[in-house]
C-alpha cells in the first residue's frame, strides 16, 4: 500500500517524486530517480532491482514504453508490481498489476503519473491529481506536496475497509546537477504527510542559506546564528 506521483515540471524540466506509504523508510530508494534521465518508481510487491534497470535502459535511449516492455518480459511476477516511469522529456507510462492489492490503479497526465495500491479507492488517486494540478505555476516541490496532501485528504490507504496510516514519505526533486536539489524524508511517523509538510516549510527557510554556504563558505554565518533568523523568518 502506497501512493505516489512522479512528474516533470513543464516550465523548468525538473523531475520530482512524492510518495507516501504504510511501509517504513520509503525514501531509502535513491535508485529510483536519476537526474537528466528520468524516474522509475516501482511499488506494491516491488523488486528493488527494477528501478535502476529501468533507468539504465532510459539512459541508453529507450522510451518509457519500451522500458516497461523489457521490465515485464523479465519478471514472472509482473502482476504483483506497480510501476510508473517518466523520462526527461515527460513521456510517461504506468502499470498496475492485477494482484497489487485493492484498490489499485493509476492515472497518467501529460507530464505526470499518479498511482497507488491498497488505497481507499479511486478517489485517492483523484485527490493526488487535484492537489497536483491546483496551482500549475507553483514550484514542483509544492505541487508534489499538495498532491500527497490531496491523496491523504481523499482517504489515503485502506485494506478491507479499514484506513491504514501513512508511516513514511519521500519528496525528491532533481535539476541538472547529479545530486538532488531537494531530498526530504520521513521514515517512521504517526502523522507522516503533515510531518513532510513541516519539513518542506523548514527546508524553504534554509535552502538559500545551505546553498550559499556550500558555494561561498567564507561569507557564511555560523548555522547556530542563522537558526534564530530562520525561526523568525
Amino acid at each position, binding site marked *: 500500500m502506497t501512493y505516489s506521483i512522479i512528474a516533470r515540471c513543464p516550465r523548468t524540466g525538473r523531475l520530482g517524486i512524492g510518495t507516501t506509504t504504510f511501509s517504513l523508510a520509503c525514501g531509502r530508494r535513491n535508485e529510483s530517480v536519476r537526474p537528466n534521465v528520468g524516474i522509475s518508481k516501482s511499488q506494491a510487491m516491488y523488486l528493488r532491482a527494477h528501478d535502476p534497470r529501468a533507468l539504465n535502459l532510459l539512459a541508453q535511449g529507450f522510451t518509457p514504453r519500451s522500458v516497461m516492455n523489457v521490465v515485464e518480459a523479465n519478471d514472472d511476477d509482473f502482476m504483483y508490481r506497480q510501476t510508473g516511469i517518466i523520462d526527461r522529456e515527460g513521456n510517461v507510462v504506468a502499470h498496475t498489476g492485477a494482484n497489487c492489492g485493492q484498490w489499485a490503479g493509476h492515472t497518467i497526465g501529460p507530464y505526470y503519473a499518479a498511482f497507488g495500491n491498497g488505497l481507499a479507492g479511486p478517489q485517492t488517486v483523484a485527490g493526488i491529481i487535484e492537489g497536483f494540478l491546483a496551482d500549475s505555476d507553483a514550484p514542483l516541490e509544492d505541487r508534489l506536496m499538495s498532491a500527497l496532501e490531496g491523496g491523504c485528504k481523499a482517504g489515503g490507504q485502506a485494506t478491507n475497509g479499514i484506513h491504514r496510516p501513512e508511516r513514511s514519505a519521500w519528496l525528491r526533486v532533481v535539476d541538472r546537477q547529479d545530486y538532488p536539489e531537494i531530498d526530504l524524508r520521513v521514515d517512521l511517523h504517526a502523522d507522516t504527510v503533515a510531518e513532510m509538510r513541516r519539513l518542506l516549510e523548514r527546508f524553504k527557510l534554509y535552502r538559500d542559506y545551505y546553498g550559499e554556504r556550500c558555494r561561498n563558505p567564507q561569507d557564511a554565518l555560523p548555522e*547556530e546564528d542563522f537558526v534564530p533568523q530562520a525561526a523568525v523568518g
Partner: protein
Amino acid sequence: MTYCIIARCPRTGRLGLGVASYSFLIGMYCSDATRANTGISITLGAPNPGNNALAVRLLAQGFTSAQVLAQLVQNDVNSDYRQIGVMDREGNVAAYSGTMTRPWRGHLAAKDHVALGDMLVGQHVLDAVVEGYAADPAASLEERLLVALEAGSDAGGQVGKGGRLPERSAAIIVAGIHDYSDWDLRVDAHDVAVKELRRVHEEFKLYADYYVERARSPRNAKTQMEFADMVAADQPKEMPAEMR
C-alpha cells in the same frame, strides 16, 4: 557541526556510513556517497554537494583513495572549508580536514574506517565514535555504525558558541552487492535525532527480511498488513518486571 564514520566491514566487504549533525538535513548531503563494490566518499564542513558523486566515479575508474582526495582538494577553490573522507572497496582510506572548518575539527583514519567531524567538544568525541564502532566486530555494519553515532553523542557531540548543539538529523547507509542500498535510514529535523534513528532502526529491523522476501516471492507473501499485525502481536505490551 557534524560527526561521521565511514567504514568497510572486513567480514562481508559491505561499505557504510553513519552521520549525525546539527544541520537539520544531513542525509540529503549523503546522496551518492556510497557505491557497492566501489567505495565511499563524504564531504562535510560546508559541504561541496558535487564531491561525493565525483569521488565515487574516480574510485570506480581506479584512482586510489589518496589520489581521489587530492583531486577533490585541487578541484575546489573553497576546499579549506571542507572536510573529506574517502575509502575504496578494499578499505584503504584518505581523509582531510580543511583549516577553515570550525574547531574542534579532525579525523581519525585507519584501515577500514575513518571517523571525522567538526565543531566537536573535542577529539574524545571521535575517539568515542571509533570505540563504539569497534565494540562488537561480529555485529552487522549498520548496527556498528549506529552504535558509533550513539557513542559520539554520549561523549558530548557538537558544540557552538552558545554551548552544546543538538543532533538535529542523522543517517545510516550501507551498500552491499546491489546497485541499490542494503540499509538506508534517515531522521531529518528532529530534537534528538540519534535517539530517533535508533527507534527507526529497531522498527525497520523487524521488516527488513519481510521486504526482501516479499519482492522475491510475491505469490507466497503475506500482505504487509498481516505482517504488521504479527509484528504488533509479538511486541510486549508492557515490559515484564524482570526486564525493567
